């Protein structure tokens, strides 16, 4: 079990929105084919952190960054690296399902089309595969050309996962993917994450301690922009080293 391979390494990350510091000296290793959960109170920088991993935060004006993030030992912020390529390799699913107001098929094929793939057969095959991997195929196979906004929230979220999978990413980032879903949809997404972990490296932000405990192999606890503790989920939840971690997971926190 200890033959873990580092997929992403963040080295001494400091991140600022304007002059306001959102992350301070965060260093962490994300292991390949493992699920890493990021927990911590609201505003502690969880979203900020995972949005750095696929260079999404660059879309926010007036931000600055110190430190490095290595994806398989290559610095993703190196000037020679194309952010578009990084975002293709590192997919992201957001808190609120955000399908395009297009058909289910067009949603999943979108990433392929913009990446220059025109072969209709290939696209069709890939769309089917991605929907199957996202455990949505059986529910939508007869209405693949209907508008995606007609799906339920949970189905929309799985559609967003399928949309990511279609471009064959290596890493999947989930920012509170179940925050707006009901318990049944939530458990479906959790099952899906456990299944996807075979093929992908996964990072998930969650406010739900049970969810972190259920789906993750490793857990990172953030507080006020700092990484307080990182370790195997089991250890973090049963024997946290830091008092603040313990207070948080036992719910004795602010």
């Amino acid at each position, binding site marked *: 079990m200890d033959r873990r391979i580092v997929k992403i390494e963040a080295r001494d990350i400091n991140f600022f929105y304007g002059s306001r510091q959102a992350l301070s000296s965060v260093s962490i290793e994300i292991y390949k084919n493992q699920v890493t959960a990021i927990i911590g109170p609201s505003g502690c920088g969880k979203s900020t952190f995972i949005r750095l991993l696929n260079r999404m935060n660059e*879309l926010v004006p007036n931000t600055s960054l110190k430190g490095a993030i290595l994806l398989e030992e290559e610095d993703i912020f190196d000037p020679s690296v194309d952010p*578009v390529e990084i975002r293709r390799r590192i997919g992201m699913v*957001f808190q609120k399902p955000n399908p*395009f*107001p297009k058909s289910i098929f067009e949603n999943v094929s979108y990433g392929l089309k*913009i990446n220059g793939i025109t072969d209709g057969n290939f696209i069709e095959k890939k769309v089917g595969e991605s929907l199957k991997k996202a455990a949505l195929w059986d529910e939508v196979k007869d209405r693949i050309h209907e508008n995606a906004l007609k799906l339920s929230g949970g189905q929309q979220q799985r559609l967003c996962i399928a949309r990511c999978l279609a471009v064959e990413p290596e890493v999947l980032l989930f920012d509170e993917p179940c925050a707006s879903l009901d318990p049944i949809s939530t458990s479906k997404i959790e099952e899906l994450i456990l299944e996807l972990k075979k093929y992908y490296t996964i990072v998930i932000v969650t406010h739900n301690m049970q969810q972190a405990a259920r789906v993750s192999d490793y857990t990172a606890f953030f507080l006020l922009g700092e990484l307080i503790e990182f370790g195997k989920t089991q250890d973090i939840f049963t024997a946290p080293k830091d008092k603040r971690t313990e207070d948080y997971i036992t719910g004795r926190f602010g």
Partner: protein
Amino acid sequence: MAKLKEKAYRWIFTVLAFSSLIFLVGIIIVLFKEGLPVFKEVKPADFIFGKAWYPTFDPPEFGILPLILASFWVTVGAMFVCVPLGVGSALYLNELAGHRQRAVLKPLVEILASIPSVVYGFFGMMMIAPFLQNLLHLPTGLCAFTASLTLGIMATPTVCSIAEDALSYVPKSFREASFAVGANRWQTLVNVVIPAAGSGISTAIILGMSRAIGETMTVLMVAGGAAVIPHSFFEPVRPMTSAIAAEMGEAPMGSAHYHSLFAIALVLFLITFVFNIVAELISRRFRIKLGLGG
């Protein structure tokens, strides 16, 4: 006591809300009452499709086709100016301009949209018309082309402002979703943002169009005023609005000429009414499509 106050408020707002409806009904009644008598003189088909507008001759002729065509030409011409300029600048404002630039430019555009049309008329008359006349050696610079250009410039800020609103209503999450699968800015704009804002942009265009077709002062000043069927963009024309404005003063009250001007207004009213309904339908579809509710 509080209940009474609440009741009073309710009443006041109900009356206010209905008063605009009453005005609208009033306008329609007046238009019909004053416009319809002209059809004692001329058949409706001859009125709309008649090629000669000689309301003061003896016998008079009341064919408004030249006026309708003039309005149509000038409006279409204006569209060629205000659609690319307005939509283009909306895209720039929304997509390329930084925060600070937008903070200055957006209000500026809104100010431009609120400049009285007489000012645009002056601009067209004093700058565009002489310039075109010299450039193209025209007998007069006051023609359909100048009117189109002036109206187009005038409608640009309206189109820009509404189109920019439509673009900014596109949820940020759509853009993020697009970027997250590896789309660049341009692909995101073309494949996600513009389609999502598409109906809003068409609403902007239609409203710009109804502003152009209903505009009076500017065309009165720069279109040249000849009530003949136009053969080229460089001839003077007399759109419906300027016919009404120019002739109302000289038409004796209650005369056929007088009634015919109201009938023109009625036609114009119906045209803009249809435009606005279409715009409303489109924007409703747009809101439903984005899941913003009907």
